[in-house]
C-alpha cells in the first residue's frame, strides 16, 4: 500500500473496532497487504508505550506530591525570587544595545580618568569588600580533599564553586555546588577520586541579590601514586 492516508484509515478502523482484528475481514486485509498488519501491530505497541510512559509520569507526580515534606524548600523560593530580580533580556533591550554601549564606554572612561587622578590611599575597593583568595588545593597536591578559600562574604551572600577538567579542552564541568555559606567544601571522596589529575576550580562570591561580586580560579595537579 503506497497511500499513507488509506493505511491510516485502515489502522483507525482496526483500532476503533470497526474492523475486528481477529475477524475474516482483517485476515483478508493482512494477507493482501502485510504493511497494514505491521502498522496495526506497531500502533498497538506504541499505545502500550504511551500508556506506560504517561503512567510513569502520573505516578511520579503522585508520589512527589505525597511526600511528607518538601526538600530544599528555601532553596526553591530563594532561587525563583533571585531569578525574578534579574533584568529581563528582551528584544527591545537588544535593539537598544547600540545606545547603551557607547554610554557604558563613556562611563568606563570617566572612571578610568578619576582612578588615575586619585592617590593609592584614596582608591575605592573595586571588589566591593569581597576579596577572594583560593587556598587549597592549589598546585601539586596528593589528593583533592578539602577545597578552601578566604573571602569577605557580603550580607546574605553565598559562594558557588565549580570544578573543571583541566586536562581536556573546553571547560568540561566535573562538579558544581551553589549556595554555600562557608568558605570550604568537601567533595565526595569517590567522586573526587574519579576526577582527572589536573583540575581547575573557580569560586564566585554571590551577594544577597544573587549577583556575583568576586571570582577567582586556580589549578591543582594531583601527584600520581
Amino acid at each position, binding site marked *: 500500500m503506497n497511500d499513507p492516508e488509506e493505511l491510516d484509515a485502515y489502522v*483507525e478502523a482496526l483500532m476503533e473496532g470497526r474492523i475486528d482484528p481477529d475477524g475474516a475481514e482483517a485476515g483478508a486485509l493482512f494477507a493482501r497487504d502485510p504493511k497494514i498488519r505491521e*502498522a496495526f*501491530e506497531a500502533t498497538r*505497541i506504541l499505545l502500550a*508505550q504511551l500508556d506506560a*510512559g504517561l503512567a510513569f509520569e502520573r505516578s511520579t507526580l503522585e508520589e*512527589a506530591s505525597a511526600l511528607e515534606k518538601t526538600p530544599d524548600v528555601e*532553596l526553591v523560593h530563594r532561587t525563583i525570587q533571585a531569578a525574578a530580580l534579574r533584568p529581563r533580556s528582551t528584544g527591545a533591550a537588544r535593539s537598544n544595545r547600540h545606545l547603551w554601549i557607547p554610554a557604558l564606554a563613556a562611563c568606563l572612561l570617566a572612571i578610568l580618568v578619576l582612578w588615575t587622578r586619585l592617590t593609592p590611599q584614596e582608591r575605592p575597593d573595586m571588589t566591593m569588600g569581597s576579596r577572594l583568595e583560593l587556598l587549597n588545593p592549589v598546585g601539586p597536591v596528593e589528593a583533592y580533599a578539602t577545597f578552601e578559600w578566604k573571602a569577605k562574604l557580603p550580607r546574605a551572600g553565598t559562594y558557588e564553586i565549580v570544578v573543571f577538567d583541566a586536562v581536556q579542552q573546553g571547560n568540561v564541568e566535573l562538579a558544581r555546588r551553589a*549556595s554555600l555559606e562557608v568558605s570550604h567544601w568537601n567533595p565526595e571522596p569517590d567522586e573526587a577520586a574519579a576526577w582527572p589529575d589536573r583540575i581547575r576550580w573557580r569560586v564566585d562570591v554571590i551577594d544577597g541579590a544573587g549577583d556575583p561580586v568576586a571570582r577567582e580560579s586556580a589549578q591543582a595537579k594531583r601527584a600520581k601514586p
Partner: protein
Amino acid sequence: MYSSNDIPNHIAAAREEDLDLARATQRREREAVDHFAKRMECVPRILAVLNRRFGRALNRDQLADLTQDVLLLVWSKLHSYAGRATIENWVHGVCFHELRGRLRGKHRMGALTPEHAESLEQPQGEPMLADYAFLLDGLSSLEATTDEIVRLKHYDDLTFEEIGKVLDMPTNSVKSRYYRGLAKLREKLAPTIQREAP
C-alpha cells in the same frame, strides 16, 4: 470532587490558569512570582522520587545542586510553556531529562556504581522506562494541539468527545488529529517499537 461531566471543563480551566500564571510570572508580577515559587516546590519533590527510581544515584547535596539548575532552566524556558500540560507535567519532563543527563555525565566519568549505571537505562520496577525519554521527544515533536490530544487521551484518560470539549473542537477533528499523531509517533519511535515487535 468533579463529576465526569465537569472533568473536561476542569482540565481546560486548570491549563488556562497555569498559562496565565506563567505569563504573569514572566511579567514579574509579585503575587504571581510568589505563587509560581510555591508551585516550583514540586521540583525537589519530583527529583527526589526520580532519584529513588534511579537507585538513589545522587546524594543529598548533589540533588540540591540539581534542583537549583532545574529551577534556573525552567525559569529560562518559561516563555516556551504553552499550557499543553500542567506546569507540573511540563516540569517533570525537564527534571527527567536533567537528572538523566547528570547521571550520564557521572557514568562517562566512571563515577557511577554498576547498579546505578544499570538503573540509568532501566529505572527500578519500570521495565519500559528506557523509552520514556524517547517518548517525550516524540510528543514534543508533534504539532501543539496533537500533542495535547494524545496527552489528554493517555494521561487524563479522556474520551474523544471529552477532549473535544476541553479543546473546543469537533469530535471528528479530534479523532483524525489523534490518529495522524499516532502515525507520526509510529515513525518517530520506530526503533523502540521494533524492539518490542513480535
